[in-house]
């Protein structure tokens, strides 16, 4: 599992870690019974306070996304389903925040997202590969 944290993200770090685990489930890089990195591994890897990692894993355990096997570590729960809704809401919240910062309302944003998606499809470019300045 790859975890990327964004220091400029307003969300507390433990929430970012939780979201990264949910994202890994949605994209399929984590599946039921897969091990998560140990608290120590992830803490050292990200140079992050181990308590923050423990807090994230603890919350995920309470939500039934992961479980602890004594002496073996933390694993994805057999019943954990990719929560596309939760991941999608996160994307939406970030997009809305950015839109408001730029003085756009929800309707404008949704319309423009559809337009841009259609343009990218027409140009048969992979998402995100379009020239960012090309918005005519």
């Amino acid at each position, binding site marked *: 599992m790859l975890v990327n*944290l964004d*220091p*400029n993200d*307003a969300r*507390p*770090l433990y929430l970012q870690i939780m979201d990264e685990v949910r994202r890994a489930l949605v994209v399929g890089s984590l599946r039921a019974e897969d091990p998560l990195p140990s*608290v*120590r591994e992830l*803490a*050292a*890897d*990200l*140079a*992050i*306070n*181990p*308590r*923050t990692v423990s807090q994230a894993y603890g919350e995920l355990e309470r939500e039934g996304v992961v479980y602890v096997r004594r002496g073996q570590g933390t694993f994805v729960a057999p019943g954990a389903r990719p929560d596309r809704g939760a991941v999608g809401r996160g994307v939406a919240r970030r997009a809305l925040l950015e839109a*408001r*910062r730029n003085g756009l309302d929800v309707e404008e944003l949704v319309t423009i997202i559809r337009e841009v998606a259609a343009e990218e499809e027409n140009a048969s470019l992979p998402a995100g590969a379009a020239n960012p300045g090309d918005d005519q």
Partner: protein
Amino acid sequence: MSPLHPEPGAPAVATRGLHKRYGRETALAGVDFLVPEGAVYVLVGANGAGKSTTFKVLMNLERPDAGTAEVFGVDAGRGGPRARAQIGYVPEHHGPGYRWMTCGQLLRHAAAYYPSWDAAYAEHLGRALGLKPHRRAGTLSKGENRRLQLVMAMAHRPPLLLLDEPTDGLDPVIRRRTLALLADHLADTPTTVVVSTHHVTEMETLADHVGVLREGRLVAQMPRDELQRTVRRYRAGVPDGWTAPPGLPQARRSRAGRELQWTLVGEPAELTARLTAAGAEVREVTTLGLEDAALAFLAEEDTV
């Protein structure tokens, strides 16, 4: 009278009314530090704000002019040796003394002092930091010295680490590795860390408590969460000729056209309400990184 032995449940560091002057210079002007056990406490402040003096008082290398300092309930002065036995210290200055000894000899020397010295761990740390055991202390570069000091501070797994600019002089690769080793260390050794640094951002993901020193006074001391909650950047549209409500506890502001931006300290809901009541349209309230939030307490106070 504070006890001479570590007290269970006592804070890792507690000072009361700590004063220290050097001639005419005031280094500490009545400081009450409180570092809970298990905290990673980052001490922020300009040069000369009193950070190094604080460490020296806790190490009993300096006597305070007034006030008390305790380490796990033990008086840092009267209980000096017992307090120091609890501490791993990376000092501000780089020189290790014993210039004729090699790094390996210095580590064995340190090992003899600490019953809890973990030789295998010292070797692991030394390897991870690229320390060369045969090098003589007197010939070490600034960065090599720092690495040696870090190994000496951490290898006896003390309950308290006092790190005065621990990454000073380290190259970016070793700096990152040092922070990773510190995170690793915290994962398997119950440790309280007090760290002063000019690179506050590098403690962004490790620190959970913050203290801000300004000219010898502790102007802020709080858990990281509270800092993130109460220090925020507000952006608001304002009508022409708008004047701010009086007494806004602001730190910094900038203006672009009819938009104003402040860094404010206080309850976000209350501050937003006050700005709105004064006719400003609050468009954005954003949290700040550790460094920006801490710096809010060091900005010059000017009126809106």
